[in-house]
């Protein structure tokens, strides 16, 4: 048993922490207000070689481990959750399926685009009637000669406006009862492919969330990702990794909220003393510190299991569920500690609270996480 980070993980943490404090945090409030995507930050992250973090060097990646990925997502999210989710989705939803299931040719074609940051990574699973329940998938890919002709809609797709390609799920065959779902790589500049970026969201305003519309989009059959009919299984596997990213995001946002609340409580004087000297506030802060510690340990454990190539489905769900729920609580309590000020944008904590809510929803709701855990423990 050893709780120390490795020398590399330590150095990555120090680097990304400094980077986040100096380059990411400063514009977070304004980007949230103006709904501006952090394009320049991603150029700088690309210059730092962060965009291909876990992927092999031969494709332009850095070959770092999942714990390092969690560290980077946590630190970015602490400064700006929109930046954090963009990065997390880029790696764990955009790049990972290509790396996990792609042929050598597909990896050679698509991973360098991801690793260099030329294309952000995006992943098309969710539809108006399908997400964690894949059976509602309506997007269809019909074979025509050497091609698939794809028709359908995807919703809530992160990063697609900045992606050169999207891996998405589509029904490739249906006997009326059971649909065969496969994953297909679709270039976003294909004829008939439209990316719509006009959601009015509650939070994460600086991240890119889109609808995809596919009208007779034609792609060569070789764009099939992984095995035919395995699309949903592949995406479940992808989501296991993605959940570590969401867990790390939650830890980062919670940490930011806690630090702001602690500093505020120490400085704010009422009834003649700092409010941090009141037990009511102390207990809130103590609970925050405790829950963050637990959540981070769980995120690291899930990441570690993944790095050890051991099963981590249950742990990924536990870390995602626990971290996102404590993040919601902590950000809400951080607003509470700030009182009226906390309700104002300038104090940041209300943004954290709005951003946190997505984490209980995206990549499987809290309820779906409980279903996953229940299945894993043998229910």
């Amino acid at each position, binding site marked *: 048993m050893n709780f120390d980070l490795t020398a*590399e993980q*330590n*150095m990555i943490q120090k680097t990304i922490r400094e980077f986040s404090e100096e380059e990411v945090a400063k514009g977070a409030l304004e980007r949230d207000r103006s709904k501006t995507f952090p394009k320049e930050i991603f150029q700088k992250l690309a210059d*730092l070689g962060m965009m291909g973090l876990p992927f092999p060097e031969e494709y332009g990646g*850095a070959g770092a481990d999942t714990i390092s990925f969690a560290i980077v997502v946590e630190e970015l999210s602490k400064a700006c959750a929109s930046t954090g989710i963009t990065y997390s989705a880029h790696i764990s939803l955009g790049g990972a399926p290509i790396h996990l299931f792609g042929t050598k040719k597909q990896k050679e074609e698509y991973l360098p685009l991801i690793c260099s940051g030329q294309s952000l990574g995006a992943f098309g699973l969710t539809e108006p009637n399908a997400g964690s329940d894949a059976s509602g998938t309506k997007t269809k890919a019909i074979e025509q000669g050497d091609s698939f002709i794809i028709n359908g809609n995807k919703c809530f797709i992160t990063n697609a406006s900045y992606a050169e390609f999207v891996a998405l799920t589509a029904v490739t065959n249906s006997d009326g009862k059971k649909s065969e779902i496969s994953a297909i790589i679709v270039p976003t500049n294909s004829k008939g492919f439209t990316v719509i970026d006009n959601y009015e969201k509650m939070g994460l305003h600086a991240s890119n969330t889109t609808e995809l519309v596919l009208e007779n989009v034609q792609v060569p059959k070789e764009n099939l990702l992984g095995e035919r009919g395995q699309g949903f299984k592949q995406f479940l596997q992808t989501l296991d990794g993605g959940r570590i990213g969401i867990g790390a995001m939650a830890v980062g946002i919670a940490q930011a909220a806690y630090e702001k609340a602690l500093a505020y409580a120490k400085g704010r004087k009422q009834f003649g003393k700092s409010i941090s000297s009141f037990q009511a506030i102390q207990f809130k802060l103590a609970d925050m510190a405790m829950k963050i510690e637990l959540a981070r340990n769980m995120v690291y454990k899930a990441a570690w299991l993944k790095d050890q190539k051991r099963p981590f489905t249950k742990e990924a769900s536990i870390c995602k569920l626990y971290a996102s729920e404590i993040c919601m609580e902590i950000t809400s309590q951080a607003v509470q500690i700030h009182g009226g000020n906390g309700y104002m944008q300038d104090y940041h904590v209300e943004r954290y609270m709005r951003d946190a809510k997505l984490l209980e929803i995206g990549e499987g709701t809290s309820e779906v996480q409980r279903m996953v855990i229940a299945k894993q423990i043998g229910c």
Partner: protein
Amino acid sequence: MNIFVLLKRTFDTEEKISIANGVINEDGAEFIINPYDEYAVEEAIQIRDDHGGEVTVLTVGNEDAEKQLRTALAMGADKAVLINIEDDVEYSDQYTTAKIIAEYLKDKEVDLIIAGNVAIDNASGQVGPRVADLLDIPYITTITNLTIDGKNVSVVRDVEGDEEKIETTLPLLVTAQQGLNDPRYPSLPGIMKAKKKPLATLELDDLDLEEEDVEAKTKTIEIYLPQQKQAGKLLTGEIEEQVKELVSLLHTEAKVI
């Protein structure tokens, strides 16, 4: 071009310093590359990238300094040397450090040595110039610009806010002032490769030095924290009254006149 960077591991500038039993308490403190040495590392990497050659970062300290050397390697330095004096030297000062560094460098092919202007802990600013003196090469301190053309070097140095332009030749030692450059973040691939770059660890024995050869020339008598700053006193009333009160306070309270 053979470039050596003299690097020191120091307290993070944001750390709160505490003293226990007459020594600075290091427990739980964060350590960093001395910020002025970071400019030195950055400058060395840039010069190497423009002119070719090799950057070696060199430190005198204990094994904990390996972390800072690895960071410099992650930034882009090629090699690192740690001269570990933990077991050999009980008390060291600038003389000790300079002597050891000079001894290491004396038979090396050295074109350029870059050090930080001062270390932010002891802030003597002596090691660089002492090394240059021992090696009998010229040195220029607090530089803010460096241009190399063949063997000729043009330097701008900061003189208490003014600029002094100096021309000289290699080999040379310079010390870096704030403003020389903007040190890079180590890149992720740089971090991943740092472990594989050569880091040599030497002891006094390897340099044919005895403890007596490097014995410190100074003794530290006492270490104490600066006095807590008191809240200022604001004088009010007629100017004449204020002046009288000021003079009286300077006389009786501050005891400076």
